[in-house]
């Protein structure tokens, strides 16, 4: 088994935090992990991507071969579309519906959603508004992670444990909020039928 994930978004959206939690969870579930990430200049408001490879045997390449991605999890809908060519035929795409429009030529949102919905295995979650409802817009990543959790080859309790571990130096309240966001994401994914915008 090799499971390939692309995380995408814009610099500053916390993609690396999300990646670290998935890595920790996978490693603690006795799986092999390789995760290639973007550092430096491109982080600032630019497109950011992160490749995660999880397997039950040794993994060689740090980057996912083209067309072999099982899941694209995106904090931003246009950034999701950027990586579609790398998706497997029956791969999953999951994205936050909130757009990050820091460029003048940002495409029409409805066109974006329309294209995303042409993919059989898609899920569009309004993670940002979920996070706001929970009182902390920073935790939309955990909502997304919750939404994606059932697709990952990692036991869900291992992911919760990884969230707790990652935020181990923060307050109980912060940890609790992140877990809450994760569970809300799980629920949203179960309820997801059709995205209405």
């Amino acid at each position: 088994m090799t499971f390939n994930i692309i995380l995408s978004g814009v610099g500053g959206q916390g993609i690396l935090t999300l990646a670290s939690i998935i890595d920790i969870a996978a490693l603690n579930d006795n799986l092999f992990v390789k995760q290639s990430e973007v550092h430096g200049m491109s982080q600032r408001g630019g497109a950011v991507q992160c490749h995660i490879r999880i397997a039950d045997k040794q993994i060689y390449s740090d980057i996912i071969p083209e067309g072999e991605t099982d899941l694209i999890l995106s904090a931003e809908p246009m950034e999701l579309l950027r990586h579609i060519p790398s998706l497997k035929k029956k791969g999953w795409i999951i994205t936050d519906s909130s757009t990050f429009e820091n460029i003048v030529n940002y495409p029409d949102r409805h066109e974006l959603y329309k294209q995303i919905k042409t993919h059989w295995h898609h899920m569009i979650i309004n993670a940002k508004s979920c996070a706001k409802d929970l009182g902390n817009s920073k935790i939309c990543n955990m909502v997304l992670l919750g939404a994606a959790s059932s697709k990952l080859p990692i036991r869900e309790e291992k992911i919760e444990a990884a969230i707790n571990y990652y935020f181990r130096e923060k307050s109980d309240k912060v940890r609790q909020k992140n877990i809450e966001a994760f569970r809300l994401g799980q629920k949203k994914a179960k309820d997801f039928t059709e995205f209405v915008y």
Partner: protein
Amino acid sequence: MKNLVLGNEALAQGAIDAGISGVYAYPGTPSTEITEYIQNSKIAKELGLHATWSVNEKTAMEAALGMSYCGKRALTVMKHVGLNVASDVFMNMAVSGINGGLVVVVADDPSMHSSQNEQDSRFYGKFAKVPILEPSNQQEAYNMMHYAFDLSEELQLPVLLRLVTRLSHSKSGVVFKERRCQNGIQLPVNTDRFALIPSNAKKQYKKLVGKRELLLQASEKSSWNKLGQHKDRSLGIVACGIGYNYVMENLADDLEFFSLLKISQYPIPKKKLKKLYKESDEVLVVEEGYPLVEEILNDYFDDTRKITGKLTGHLPETGELTPNLVAKAIGLYRKEPKPVSDLVVARPPQLCEGCGHIDLFKVIQEVIPSIGQKKVFGDIGCYALGALAPMNTINTLIDMGASITMAKGAADAGLDNAIAIIGDSTFTHSGMTGLLEAVNENSPITVVISDNSAVAMTGAQESLATGRLKEICLGLGVPADHLKQIVPLKKNFKLNVEILKKEINHKGVSVIISERPCVRLTRESKEQIKQKLASLN
């Protein structure tokens, strides 16, 4: 227990566990996290390892050599273009040799994710005639540090350890070993070899050349260089460093059909290569960076027909390798990727919201119509983004410090009103010397130092210039009445434009220090800056 770490972090932990006494570095993507890891490491603190940033790569490497001179193990770290800055001491310490183990880690950036060129540091290692190590994964990066220091002490030579972005910035589970104790102080038996006056240097250089055979033997017997030969002799593959991963990604399941030589230590193991070459109908060389091994192979064997790689176009000569590119070179079929949706547009990096550089650029933009276009000389740092829309302000970006010296050269050529823009850290890295030249000739240039109290582009590390810029400039001879300090804020726009216009019209050197802290500074580092400023006053 496996530890989840970046390639850079694996290497840093490896260095701590190999018993280093210090690390010397200047931040630069993709190498920065190595030093940061050691700075943040509890155990490194307990051990009292030296781990503060250096002013540039040359001073870093020289300090590492000083530590090695005392018999202790020292690490020096930089990105590939940083090795150009340190190349003077690098070439010479190969001649002097080292005392305590000295490892030079250089992170190359093929594909130029965050750099201005793609140079391959293995050429520098070959140039200096020192051993080169090139890990292919995180565990190797860790293990190799122990080996590198042992090898360095055994051969009495610095060892170059080459990384590439894709390994520096990729995480994996790594198993750590027991830590070795630091060396005690033990000065060299013969200090003449460190005094490279011609009479000593000639002896030393002969010694260095005389070590060739030793280096070759070390490489030949090195367990990092593995040759696996199989019955099917149609294709033999030479895979270097991270190239090995891409080969294995494609062939791990069918390895019995191929002969494969993995190279992770140089000089290249000649005997193993010959064996592979003789017994294969064709040889494919997979290496990240320049076609170094491929060129050597072509020279060894006067029959280039059966050697393929970058020079023959089987692999691209620019950019990073990928599993797909390597699959194609091996002759495996991979589907061509589908095109990206037309809806997707580029999202380039941008200056952070509230960044002081933005307000500074607006001031410069305002004066451009009066001085004429194409006269703004830029430098390396976040403000390099001023070359792109919506700023479109700076016109050059070559290397650290070039803004001031290029503006001076342009002024020498007769260009009026040249402006040089440089960051605070870049200024101390390589700008000060150029400013002295400009001062000596009172060149009609205006140097704008955009001081944000940080090495911001690489993640807001400490800038050694903080609180010292004015004194440095005065010390270099900048006239006090043409040394101005401004604060780039919207409310100061008019005043700042006025000051800049006035200084541009001055027919001699002017320096404007534009001061506003980086928005990415943490509360902790702001506090440190405050303390530093207080101690300076």
